[in-house]
């Protein structure tokens, strides 16, 4: 068949399809209004497949590029519509947090335990070391930083007895979100550098946190410090470790892809890691909330603070350990 005959035979069909795309192409708008097009919605997949067949024919028969380009454009618009992203659902988000996320974390025990060791060993080691060799803090931090940190947790400072003004809480809430979640997300991303980035971030954070805690404990500022960090530590420390673990997983798949192409291994690891990161970001959001509005109120007695902290630790660990086990909707 010659091109002109082909066009004459199918032109009406193409125009109807194009008109439908213009009228009904926006799925959100189309839900609310009546179909003003000559083509019913349920006919579209069949029409789209016919169009694909016509495009294939046109290419095969060597029709002109201007015709095939036009058909490809129509086809691509149909393709985008038929294979579009489903809208996000709140129910799925809740199920992800309660069940899928703990399952994902448990599915990579090696990376998660390695991340925990990389973070906890420097932290504890530094803390213990500073109890015996307190002068070592000066080889880690600038004198200015040390003075600032001491002033923040000085038990003799009357401001700590009263807590911050509420505007200050909000300010710190924003600051924690910007800072902590960004650090968590970057920890994961830096895992792409063969895991080296994630390892460095984990060790660095362990050393710094261990140094600060060790120094403050050693000079006798322990009480305000522990009361401040007890509340948000369960969420914040765990989330950093999980982000690091996801980063290690990504790096591991770059180094040792197994029986897959390296790029395929990375795609799979990236999907898993990004979902772990989303869960960890939610944890960091909770941590920022606690840190800004609960941890900062120093008027609460230490007993209550430590009690709440113990409860939160139990909750987080039980969630990660048991969450998503035995549910009927196991994916």
């Amino acid at each position: 068949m010659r091109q002109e005959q082909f066009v004459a035979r199918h032109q009406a069909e193409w125009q109807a399809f194009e008109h439908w795309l213009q009228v009904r192409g926006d799925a959100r708008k189309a839900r609310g209004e009546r179909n003003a097009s000559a083509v019913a919605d349920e006919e579209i997949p069949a029409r789209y497949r016919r169009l694909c067949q016509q495009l294939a024919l046109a290419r095969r028969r060597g029709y002109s590029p201007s015709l095939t380009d036009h058909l490809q454009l129509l086809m691509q618009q149909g393709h985008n519509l038929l294979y579009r992203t489903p809208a996000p659902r709140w129910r799925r988000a809740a199920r992800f947090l309660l069940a899928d996320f703990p399952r994902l974390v448990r599915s990579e025990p090696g990376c998660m335990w390695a991340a925990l060791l990389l973070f906890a060993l420097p932290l504890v080691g530094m803390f213990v070391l500073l109890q015996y060799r307190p002068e070592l803090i000066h080889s880690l931090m600038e004198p200015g930083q040390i003075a600032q940190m001491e002033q923040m947790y000085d038990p003799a400072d009357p401001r700590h007895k009263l807590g911050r003004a509420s505007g200050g809480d909000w300010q710190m809430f924003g600051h924690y979100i910007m800072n902590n979640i960004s650090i968590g997300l970057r920890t994961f991303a830096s895992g792409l550098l063969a895991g080296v980035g994630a390892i460095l971030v984990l060790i660095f954070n362990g050393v710094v946190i261990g140094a600060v805690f060790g120094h403050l404990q050693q000079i006798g500022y322990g009480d305000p410090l522990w009361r401040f960090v007890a509340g948000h530590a369960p969420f914040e420390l765990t989330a950093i470790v999980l982000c690091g673990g996801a980063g290690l997983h990504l790096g591991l798949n770059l180094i040792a892809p197994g029986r897959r192409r390296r790029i395929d291994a990375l795609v799979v690891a990236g999907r898993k890691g990004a979902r772990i990161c989303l869960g960890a970001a939610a944890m960091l959001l909770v941590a920022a909330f606690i840190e800004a509005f609960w941890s900062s109120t120093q008027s609460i007695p230490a007993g209550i603070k430590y009690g709440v902290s113990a409860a939160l630790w139990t909750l987080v660990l039980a969630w990660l350990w048991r969450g998503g086990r035995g549910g009927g909707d196991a994916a």
Partner: protein
Amino acid sequence: MAAADPIRLDTYREVITPEGVVLQLPAAGAMPRAVAWVIDLAVRLTVLLLMGIPLGLLGGVGQGIYAVGMFLLFWAYPIVLEASWNGQTVGKRALGLRVVSADGAPVGWLAAVIRNLLRAVDMLPVGYAAGLVASLIDPHGRRLGDMVAGTLVVHVPPRAEHRAAPLNAVYAPPLPLRPDEQGAVVAFGERAPRLTPARQIELADIAAPLTQAQGQPGVLRLYGMANWLLGRR
């Protein structure tokens, strides 16, 4: 999935859809993407600036909201726009770019999250250097985040309206033509009316072995052959 054709010079990535048709995705290079990124940066800074003026008056609460806004503009802006606005941010729309999945389907939420989280690596060590090197090496111009997310940035093709070739003489080709040669001759018939006469002659002279004529007669013979191939007898 990808049917790579080594002799093609274009940066098309060809994927086969479930319907068995080859979809051609014109991959975008580093330059238009960098310009789109600069536009996005300008948009974000403007929003931040406009937000900062009223929030600055609110004191601590305002500063808190400002920091949250900064976080959202930095991390969530590209993710939400790409996933929910046809794979385009403001800058990408201005430059006619679009993020698609490597198989040509619209980009999903998870893929948008991955490619934007991994920006942190593409930015290393300074000014997207890692991303630039990766996109220069990759045949489809993907940065590291695109590779891990399985996505691709493509040019949105301009609206192609099919125009019929003008009606004039009919002239049968002296020898049988292959389908791609037929397509080229018909394309000449359809596009040449929009070219200058000099350019028409220049193009027709390339086909002199077929038309066996130089200059204007060659152009007319090519028109004739296009008409013959279109089925006008």
